[in-house]
């Protein structure tokens, strides 16, 4: 099956530094994929390899099943992390210019530019110099330039950075709109909330290596979930739940009205509703119920933190080995 984007064991080194280390990832058609990682994790380098801006030292990149060449790149819209435009050009000319470079005819490109600018509320600035626009307006122009040619694959590198909350929300809407149009979307970010709201699947990288690749649900499952139950009358959930396969731990604090909170750890395949049902069936007088879902941020911190710790351990080990050899 041909996927819009594939990286296969892609590696990129800069001198002695390995920016991306054997990264494999696939972006399926019609998906919105979040590419997550801390600053310096190798996200931009991976995207640049995928787009053919730089060639991988090892492994390979494919767009729509082919090496990234101009023909395939015409189906791609790319918003780079480091953004900029020709300041003396007008928004209209800019959008049309990049659309024409992607293969649109002059007439279609200008018509599309007018239409996009109008919809984005920039119709009045269509012929102004970009240097006269505000930063937010200029960013909008760049985003419009990225999707003017209606690409099948949109790759957005840190698209939300530098945008105020209102424009971030507007961009989220735009991404959803493009997805509805049929575009496959891959965007990198280190702001988890955007990924949680938009993505069907995510890829996490840290220190140039992939640490997670899967759906959002799978990501949440990494940390395990829990449910909090409040009972009255001194009911002992710790003794009542194990027969149903749940482990409950008493929390230290007791509410002023005498309610005791218990934390039920959920393992793979269990969910909070099942825990509640088991407690009721065990005759527990339930006074409160709070399903506790892991947030992507916690998953991210956990995975990336583990990767960073592992990296640090390897570095120290390597240092010790070199010292011993010396």
């Amino acid at each position: 099956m041909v996927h819009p984007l594939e990286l296969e064991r892609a590696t990129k080194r800069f001198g002695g530094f390995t920016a991306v280390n054997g990264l494999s990832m696939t972006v399926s058609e019609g998906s919105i994929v979040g590419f997550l990682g801390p600053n310096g994790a190798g996200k931009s380098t991976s995207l640049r390899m995928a787009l053919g801006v730089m060639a991988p030292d090892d492994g390979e990149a494919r767009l729509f099943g082919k090496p990234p060449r101009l023909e395939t790149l015409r189906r791609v819209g790319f918003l780079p992390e480091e953004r900029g435009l020709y300041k003396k050009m007008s928004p209209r000319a800019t959008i049309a210019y990049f659309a024409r470079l992607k293969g649109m005819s002059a007439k279609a490109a200008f018509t599309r530019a007018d239409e996009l600018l109008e919809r984005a509320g920039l119709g009045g600035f269509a012929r102004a110099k970009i240097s006269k626009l505000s930063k937010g307006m200029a960013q909008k122009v760049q985003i419009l330039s990225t999707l003017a040619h209606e690409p099948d694959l949109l790759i957005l590198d840190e698209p939300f950075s530098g945008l105020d909350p209102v424009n971030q929300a507007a961009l989220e809407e735009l991404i959803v709109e493009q997805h509805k149009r049929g575009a496959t979307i891959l965007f990198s970010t280190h702001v988890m909330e955007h990924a949680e709201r938009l993505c069907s699947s995510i890829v996490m990288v840290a220190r140039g290596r992939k640490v997670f690749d899967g759906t959002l649900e799978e990501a949440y499952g990494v940390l395990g979930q829990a449910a909090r139950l409040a009972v009255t009358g001194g009911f002992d959930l710790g003794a009542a739940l194990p027969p149903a396969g749940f482990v409950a731990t008493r929390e230290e604090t007791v509410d002023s009205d005498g309610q005791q909170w218990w934390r039920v750890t959920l393992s793979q395949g269990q969910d909070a509703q099942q825990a509640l049902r088991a407690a009721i069936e065990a005759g527990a007088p339930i006074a409160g119920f709070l399903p506790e879902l892991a947030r992507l941020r916690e998953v991210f911190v956990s995975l990336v933190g583990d990767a960073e710790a592992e990296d640090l351990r390897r570095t120290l080990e390597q240092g010790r080995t070199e010292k011993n050899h010396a």
Partner: protein
Amino acid sequence: MRNIYLIARRDYLGYVTSWGFWLGLLLTPLILAAFILAPSLIENNQPVRYYTVIDSNGAFASQLADRLESRRESDVERQLFQLAVEAPEGFDPQSIPRFREAIAAGADVETALEQAKPGLVVSVPERSYQFIPPPAQTEAGLAPYLLGNESIGETGARRLFAALIVNPDTGEVTYLSDDVVNDGLKSAARWAIEDEVRAKVLGAAGLDPADVQAAVDAAPRIIERKVGEGGEVRQVTMADQAPYIAAVAIAFLLWFLIFSVVNYLLSGTIEERSNKIFDTLLTSAKLTQLLTGKLAAVFVLSLTLMSFWVVGGVLVAQVAGGGMPASAAQFLSAFGNVLIQPGILIPTLLSFVLGYLMFGAIFLALGSLCESVQEAQTLMSPLLIILMVPLLFFSMAITDPKSPILAGLSWFPLFTPFLLILRLPNGLPLPEVAGLIGAMALTTVIILWAAMRVYRAGAVHGAGVDSVGRWFKGLVGGGSRKGSG
């Protein structure tokens, strides 16, 4: 091709819609014209300088006045000879002797010319220095007039330029002036003293100085003739000098164009780097398309400039054509004939294209490494020095076109575009022309290849001025450490 066209078009429109382009377009010919015409304009529009002579017997004052007037006479005489050579059909050969006779009879230049032949088109130079009677007799007394504190004459605020005081005992002349730079009057005074000494020596030998002068005037002239390609011998005219002057003009134009337009490449690339446009561009066009488009844009820009200047020059020449001296028209015609000779036209065009590509690619590569013009200056300095070197040899191309230094330096590929053009009027053998063009073409290919790599390092890997510094350190230190680019 489409992407190259789009990139070139965008860059070109970006350049021509900037104020800088129009300023350069309009001001450049004006500045060049000012440079060319300034010396003669200054000379012709010099206000008359007033001088005085304090000489008890008056002989020196008279000698000096004659000497100053003789410059104007020589100038007119030179023009009459030129007319005799270049427009013999309408020229009366007796005009020159008649002019000399009138001068010898004591007529001033204007009257002598009128007596020689009425209606001759000769430009008579204005008098630069005008004698006035001494307003004071001592140095102290003359000082206020020389400083302009006191005015000489009755009309307007006239300042005394210089005073020459002759010592009656020794004959020594003191030249007194506030202006220590202009030495026209001073050298005329020196000649006048020598004239006087010569007259005394001739008189002591029983010879009349006027007879000696008449003999000098009647001395046979040197007639310059040239052997042509086919062995024919003919009179040397200004048209023979045209190829050399044309070569210098073309080489200078090429140098000036390269110097003017490659800066656009540099600043355009710096803008793209500093505005972070490279990644967007590189996912829309190939690196080769990007480079080709940019070079094409600036090439067309230089053609635009040249077209404007040439068309403007032709229009100005046509408008001014009526008042143009025959010699100038003849020279321009010869200049045009030089340009259409295939032996000059083809190597010139190739030099222009290859020279432009070489320097354009270098500036493009440098621009991709720099975030700002200030940063670029660090890298540009050595290149600018290289660009300046050929300029030093432009005058040599006229005075000593067959110089072995010129010939040797023309084999240095970065100088070849300019120096080859300078050497073309010498009738270079075809193998040498082909060799020079071949070496230049090979160097151009190497530079384009290297520029592509540097551009990639700058645009894709973010290599900068620091990377160049590290590379040089590695080179000097013999290291082979690989940079991040």
